[in-house]
């Protein structure tokens, strides 16, 4: 597990709106980190800061030199004046034809190769975006709500796919998702974000955490239960939870999993 | 009296009629093109306070048409009855023989027209309050003799150019040619904003066989004119019909006309033609 990307003490303000507060986040290879949190919690903002797309108001970013990233933004609009087939769009990611074809097969959109990007349906667009990210054989996959608008079967299949690729290629994954019930099964670290990090750790321990229940309610916890216990994949990482939502004392840090340093709230 | 004229050649024409008490303002500096001239507040004030405003007409100074429409001080020269105009037939190109061909507005290039303008201006000046008519008459008389002499001189000088055949870049020398009996073979384009077609240029090459040079105006950049002259196989002679290069001083109109004649003679004496 190599460290790929690390953010320390990141703060982000838009005007007088504090969006991110003192966030520490560290991404490692072969590790899936999932950001969850209510709408407007700052998940996308944090992802963009990590990728260098948004300058944080304060904080530091460290990044493995020559890190190859596969990114899937939350939304994509392509100008209609640009003629662009799915195939050409994927090639722009810089992957070989072989890798592209393989990725297309995995995400189930081979048939769309010659379609125009602008004519794709919502779910098709998501699949194509994921294909581009995967085809690059990245060291780090960054996915902002990857299965948004994808049909039911696709959701399950794509999450499984991401998990599988993580194991095969050993790439790190940072993912934003609202599909608690689907995502929890395949993730190593869950970070529950709401401006600041509410709680984080292994999914099963996070879901038991009061801050989590606070944010998502018992219904969500229940839905998670249904899925995670159906799941046949075994986790070998221990699932301790570090939380400072109510400024509790820190447990010692045992792994490279993200850790939030405590600072007084601004 | 307060006078305003649109362009430099008109200033040259009226200067001799003015005395030390009179003021004269030229709107268009030699460097500005009438196409993108934008009036300044001082220009408007000068126009409104002027006793007499001279301009050729909308064909040349379109930007003046509107502000002068209501000003009684304005004198539109191309409306003067005493002017002589070049034959339309001579002007029009074989393939451009349409009814409403524009008149060549460079009317000051004919000394007779210069006299007519001077007469008209003198008349208007005399009618102004506070102007001594006799003095103006005297100045006009001097001017008439000078211009008559100039005419004679130019006729003599240009006599040897009668056999000369030349082409012009812009259709600007109708008055000049008419007065001095010169033979212009063809014009490349009728107006500066109209570019010639390819066929026209090709046909010009045919006629260029009989021509001895190409006359064009001196712009700050002559590259395309030079290229055309090369294409036609003619020496290029740059003329200055607007008097841009005439130094300040007395008798500028005569200098303008003499320069023009001298430049044309240079064409005849061009090494390529000797």
């Amino acid at each position, binding site marked *: 597990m190599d460290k790929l990307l690390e953010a320390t003490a990141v703060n982000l303000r838009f005007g007088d709106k504090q969006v991110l507060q003192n966030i520490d986040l560290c991404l490692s290879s072969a590790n899936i980190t999932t950001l969850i949190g209510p709408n407007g919690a700052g998940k996308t903002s944090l992802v963009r800061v990590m990728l260098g797309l948004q300058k944080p108001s304060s904080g530091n970013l460290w990044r493995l030199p020559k890190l190859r990233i596969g990114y899937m933004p939350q939304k994509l609009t392509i100008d*209609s*004046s640009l003629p662009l087939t799915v195939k050409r769009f994927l090639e722009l990611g810089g992957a070989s034809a072989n890798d592209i074809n393989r990725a297309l097969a995995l995400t189930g959109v081979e048939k769309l190769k010659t379609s125009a990007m602008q004519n794709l349906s919502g779910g098709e667009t998501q699949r194509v975006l994921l294909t581009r990210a995967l085809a690059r054989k990245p060291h780090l996959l960054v996915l902002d709500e990857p299965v948004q608008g994808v049909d039911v079967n696709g959701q399950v299949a794509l999450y499984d796919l991401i998990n599988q690729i993580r194991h095969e290629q050993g790439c790190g994954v940072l993912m934003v998702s609202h599909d608690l019930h689907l995502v929890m099964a395949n993730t190593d670290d869950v970070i529950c974000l709401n401006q600041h990090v509410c709680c984080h750790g292994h999914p099963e321990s996070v879901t038991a955490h009061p801050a989590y229940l606070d944010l998502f309610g018992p219904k969500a916890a229940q839905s998670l239960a249904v899925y995670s216990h159906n799941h046949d994949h075994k986790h070998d990482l221990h699932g301790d939870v570090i939380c400072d939502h109510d400024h509790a004392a820190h447990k010692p840090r045992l792994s490279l999993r993200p850790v939030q340093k405590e600072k007084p709230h601004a | 009296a307060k006078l305003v004229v649109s362009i430099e050649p008109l200033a040259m024409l009226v200067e001799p009629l003015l005395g030390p008490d009179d003021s004269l303002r030229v709107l268009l500096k030699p460097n500005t093109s009438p*196409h993108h001239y934008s*009036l*300044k507040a001082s220009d*408007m004030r000068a126009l*409104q306070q002027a006793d007499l405003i001279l301009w050729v007409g909308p*064909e040349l100074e379109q930007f003046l048409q509107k502000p002068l429409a209501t000003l009684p001080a304005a004198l539109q020269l191309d409306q003067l009855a005493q002017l002589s105009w070049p034959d339309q037939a001579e002007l029009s190109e074989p393939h451009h023989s*349409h009814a409403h061909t524009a008149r060549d507005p460079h009317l000051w290039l004919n000394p007779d027209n210069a006299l007519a303008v001077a007469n008209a201006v003198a008349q208007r000046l005399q009618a102004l309050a506070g102007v001594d008519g006799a003095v103006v008459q005297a100045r006009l008389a001097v001017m008439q003799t000078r211009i008559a002499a100039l005419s004679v001189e130019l006729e003599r000088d240009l006599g040897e150019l009668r056999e000369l055949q030349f082409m012009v870049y812009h259709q600007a020398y109708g008055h000049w040619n008419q007065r001095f009996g010169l033979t212009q073979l063809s014009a490349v384009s009728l107006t500066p904003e109209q570019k010639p077609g390819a066929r026209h240029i090709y046909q010009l090459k045919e006629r260029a066989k009989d021509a001895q040079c190409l006359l064009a105006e001196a712009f700050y950049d002559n590259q395309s004119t030079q290229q055309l002259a090369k294409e036609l196989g003619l020496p290029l002679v740059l003329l200055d019909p607007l008097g841009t290069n005439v130094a300040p001083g007395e008798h500028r109109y005569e200098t303008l006309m003499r320069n023009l004649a001298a430049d044309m003679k240079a064409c005849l004496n061009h090494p390529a033609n000797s």
Partner: protein
Amino acid sequence: MPDFMVNAWLAGAAVAIVAGPLGSFAVWRRMAYFGDTLAHSALLGVVFGLVLDININIAVTLGCLILAVALVLLQQTRLLATDTLLGILSHSTLALGLVCIGLFGNTRVDLLAYLFGDLLTATPMDVITIALVAAVVLALVIGFWRSLISITVHEELARVEGVKVEAVRMLLMLAMALVIAIAMKVVGVLLITALLIIPAAAARRITHTPEHMAGVASLLGLVAVSSGLITSFFWDTPAGPSVVLSASTLFALTLLKPQR
């Protein structure tokens, strides 16, 4: 203050006020070059006026309105952005005008006359005409304001909510074309276009709603006209360009405002 300055200010002010909302639409709908396009096509209007022997001003105005309709039709193909369509129309009509001018009539047509116009030569009659057209257009724009903004934000949402999208869009284009065509001969297209887009662009950075932006744009336009004319009067600079430069200065000032 001499009469001509008063007339110039009145004409400029009328254009500036109606240009606030219209210019905002130009900025939002990426029609910044609509004015230029109309000016280029004016040449064609002049030629047709000469050929068909109708009043040139009417011919030019008609030409502008036809161009606006052509733009609306081309926009329906959806594959090309508005600025591209404007570029195509502008250059095609100008080229056609230049070719026609050679084929018919040798009357000298001064292309640049439409570009530069002259604020200082505005007559009382001009002022009345511009003010009238501006008032009518302003009333129309205010009357249809919600529909106009709706189709600008999201055309399909507007259509589902019952807005007659095609009619409203056509209204906007024709209103804009009319104002430009009428004001073109008086103050020149350079000045109209500048008054349309520069104040609106300056207002963008300091406002948060469309109404606010349109209003502030009108205001900034008024400031630009006034200060430009004052500059022109006291430093004796050409009037039109001075107004444009005043507007540019205002825009540059808003750039200083730090962005959120």
